[in-house]
C-alpha cells in the first residue's frame, strides 16, 4: 500500500483536572489513505472527538497531547523526542502553531463539527462566514471567494444560494446548517476532512440525504474523510475502513466488511448487536450492559472486561495489545482481545468472571462464548 496521507502513531492526549489525569486518548494508532473514508466509532466518552481535535492540535486546556506522533503528507503535526536530560521536547521538524494555523487548519485538514445549531456564528451571515474561510484558506479576493461560496452552497444542495448567502444561521434549518458546515469544509479544498458526528443531531431522513451527498462529493473531489460516529449503520453506509474505540483505545480495526462479517472483538459485537435492524424486534436488541467506566481511572487489564460477556479472570489482569487477525502482513484487521491469544495468556483455562453482562457465574460461559463465533 502507498504512503498514508495521515498517520497517527501511539497518540496520547490527557486532561489534567483537579480530580486527576483523564487519559482521554491512550495510545491510538491508525492511518488514513488518499481517497478513503475511515470510520472512528465508539460510544460518547470513548475519546473520538479528543482524537480528532488532537490531529488539528486544537485540544483545549487542561487537555494536552502528551505522546505519540502525527504525520500528515510527510510533515510532522506532532512529535516528541528526548533531549539530553531525558526530558521530552517537541521535535525540530514539528510544525509551529503559526504553521499549523496557516498551512494545515482549513487548508489541508478541515473539520465538520457535530452541532450544526451552535457551530455557526449567530451574528454573521452564513455567506460571510463561508467566504471568510475561503479567503483565508485559498488566498482568494473577496469577490472571488463570494462566487466560490455561492457555488459550493449550490453544490451541497442549498436552494437559491445567491439569496440565502445573505441570511443568518437562525434562518436555516438544522439540516441546512449542516450542509453549510459541509460546504465550508469542501470549499477550502482540503485533502482530509474530519467529520465529527456530523449527522447525529439530525433526523434520520435528513441524515440519509446528507450521507448520500457526502458520498457523491467524496467521489467527485477524491477527498479523504475521518468519519466519527457512534452509529454502526452510518459506518456501514459510508466507511471504507473502521477503527473502533473504547475508553481511549482502538480495540479493533478492519475493512468495513470484515468488521461486520468477521467481528473479532466482543465490544464490536456488542456495538453491532445494539444496532436496530429491520429484521429484529425491539426485544431482540441487546443494549450494551453497564456504563463505560471513566477514563480517569481505567479498569485494570482489558478495559472492557467488566461489561464483556466473554470476560475471564485473565482479562482482569492482562492488558491486550492489538494483534493481527487476518494473517497477512499489511495489518488490515487487528483486534485487542486476549481470547485470540489463547495459548500465550491462558484465556481458555481461565475461569469466567461474574460481570454485568454475564449476570452470574454460570450464565455466560458456553452460551455467550458460542454466540460470538
Amino acid at each position: 500500500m502507498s504512503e498514508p496521507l495521515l498517520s497517527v502513531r501511539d497518540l496520547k492526549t490527557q486532561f489534567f483536572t483537579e480530580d486527576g489525569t483523564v487519559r482521554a486518548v491512550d495510545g491510538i494508532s491508525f492511518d488514513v489513505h488518499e481517497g478513503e473514508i475511515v470510520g472512528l466509532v465508539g460510544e460518547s466518552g470513548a475519546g473520538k472527538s479528543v482524537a480528532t481535535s488532537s490531529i488539528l492540535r486544537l485540544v483545549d486546556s487542561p487537555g494536552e497531547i502528551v505522546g505519540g506522533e502525527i504525520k500528515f503528507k510527510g510533515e510532522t503535526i506532532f512529535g516528541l523526542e528526548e533531549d539530553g536530560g531525558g526530558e521530552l521536547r517537541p521535535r525540530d521538524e514539528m510544525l509551529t502553531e503559526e504553521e499549523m494555523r496557516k498551512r494545515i487548519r482549513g487548508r489541508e485538514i478541515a473539520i465538520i463539527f457535530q452541532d450544526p445549531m451552535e457551530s455557526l456564528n449567530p451574528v454573521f451571515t452564513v455567506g460571510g462566514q463561508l467566504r471568510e474561510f475561503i479567503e483565508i484558506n485559498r488566498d482568494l479576493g473577496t469577490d472571488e471567494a463570494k462566487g466560490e461560496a455561492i457555488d459550493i452552497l449550490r453544490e451541497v444542495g442549498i436552494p437559491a444560494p445567491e439569496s440565502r448567502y445573505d441570511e443568518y444561521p437562525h434562518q436555516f434549518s438544522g439540516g441546512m446548517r449542516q450542509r453549510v458546515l459541509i460546504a465550508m469544509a469542501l470549499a477550502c479544498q482540503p485533502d482530509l476532512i474530519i467529520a465529527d458526528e456530523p449527522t447525529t443531531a439530525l433526523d434520520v431522513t435528513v441524515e440519509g440525504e446528507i450521507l448520500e451527498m457526502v458520498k457523491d462529493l467524496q467521489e467527485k473531489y477524491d477527498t479523504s474523510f475521518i468519519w466519527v460516529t457512534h452509529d454502526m449503520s452510518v459506518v456501514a453506509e459510508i466507511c471504507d475502513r473502521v477503527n473502533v474505540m473504547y475508553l481511549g483505545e482502538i480495540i479493533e480495526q478492519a475493512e468495513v466488511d470484515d468488521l461486520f462479517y468477521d467481528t473479532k472483538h466482543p465490544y464490536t459485537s456488542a456495538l453491532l448487536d445494539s444496532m436496530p435492524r429491520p429484521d429484529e424486534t425491539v426485544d431482540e436488541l441487546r443494549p450494551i450492559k453497564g456504563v463505560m467506566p471513566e477514563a480517569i481511572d481505567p479498569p485494570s487489564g482489558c478495559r472492557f472486561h467488566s461489561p464483556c460477556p466473554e470476560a475471564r479472570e485473565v482479562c482482569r489482569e492482562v492488558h491486550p495489545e492489538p494483534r493481527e487477525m487476518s494473517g497477512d502482513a499489511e495489518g488490515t484487521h487487528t483486534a485487542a482481545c486476549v481470547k485470540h491469544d489463547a495459548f500465550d495468556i491462558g484465556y481458555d483455562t481461565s475461569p469466567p468472571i461474574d460481570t454485568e453482562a454475564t449476570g452470574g457465574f454460570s450464565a455466560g460461559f458456553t452460551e455467550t462464548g458460542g454466540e460470538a463465533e
Partner: protein
Amino acid sequence: MSLLRYTLRRFAQAIPVLIGIVTITFFLANQIPGDPVEIMLGPTPAQEQVEAIRAQYGLDRPIHVRYFTYLSGVATGDLGLSIYYDRPVLEMILLRLPVTLLLMLSAFAFAIVTAIPLGVISAKRRNEPADHVSRIVSLIGVSTPSFWIGLVLIIVFAFYLGWFPARGLVLPWADPADVRGAATRIGVLRQTAHHLFLPMIGLGTLQMAQITRIERSSMVDSLQGEYVKLARAYGVPESTIVRKHAFQVAQLPVITIIGLGLSTALGGAVLTETVFEIQGMGRLIITAINNQDYQLIMGTTLVFGFVYVIGVIVTDITYSYLDPRVTYGDE
C-alpha cells in the same frame, strides 16, 4: 423600515408604563405631609390669599379630578407650576436635564471605553494576573458607593493635587463671556472637560465595574463557543477570533446590562450632583423635596422615569439591531 416600525412599536408599548409612572408619582406626591401653600405664604396667611393660591394651583379640587387634569397636562407637556421657583416645572426641567444627560453620557462613555478592553483582556487571559487585577478592580467598583468615590476624588485630585476643580460644571454650549478662564468656544469646551472629569469617574466607576464583569463572563462564554472552535479549526488568526468572532456575540448581554445600569446611574447622578454641587436634575429633585414643591417633585420624578424608559428602549433597539435573531415583527 422594519426597524422604524419596531421603534414605534416599542414606544407605543411603553405608554402604559409611562402612565403608570405618572400615576405612582402623583399619588406619592399627594401623600406628602405639610401644606405647600403654608410654606409659600408663611405660618399665618390671610384666608382669602390661601384660597386664591389654592385655586391658582388647583388644590381646591378633589384628588381624582386633579389626577386626570395632571395626566392630560403631562400628555400636552404641561407639568404645572413650580411653587418654589415660581416658573413652569417644564422650564426648570429643560434647564437642568441637559446637565444631567451630559453627566450620564460622559459617565457611560468612560465606563464603556474602559470596561470593554478590561473585560476582553480578562476573559482572554483567564486566571492570569491581568485577569485577577481586572476582577479585583471591578469587584471594588461594584462595592463602592459612588458618592464616596466622589469625595475621595475631590480630596485627592482637587484638594491635594489641585488638578481638577472640586465643584460645579461648565456647559459646553455656555457663552464664553460667562465662563471664567475661557475666551473662546474651545476654551469653554476645555473648561467643560476639566469640570466634568471627576464627576464622570465618580458616576461611571460602578457602571465600568458592572460592564467589565459582564463583558468578561460573556467573552469567556463566547470564547468557548462552538463557532470559535470552528474558526480556529479553519485557521482564523486568534486576534481576529477575539476581535470579531467572539466579540460580536459577546456584546449582546453587555447591551442589556448597560440598559439596566441606566437606573442605577440616574440614581447615582442625584448623589454625584450633590457631591460636586452640580445644578442638574438630581439637585432639582432634592430642592423640590426640601421645599415641598410637589408639582416640581412630580415633574422631576416622572422625567427620571421617562428618561430611563427611553434609555431602555434605545438599548432594546440597539440590541435588536445587533442581534439578527431578534425579529422586528410580532413574536
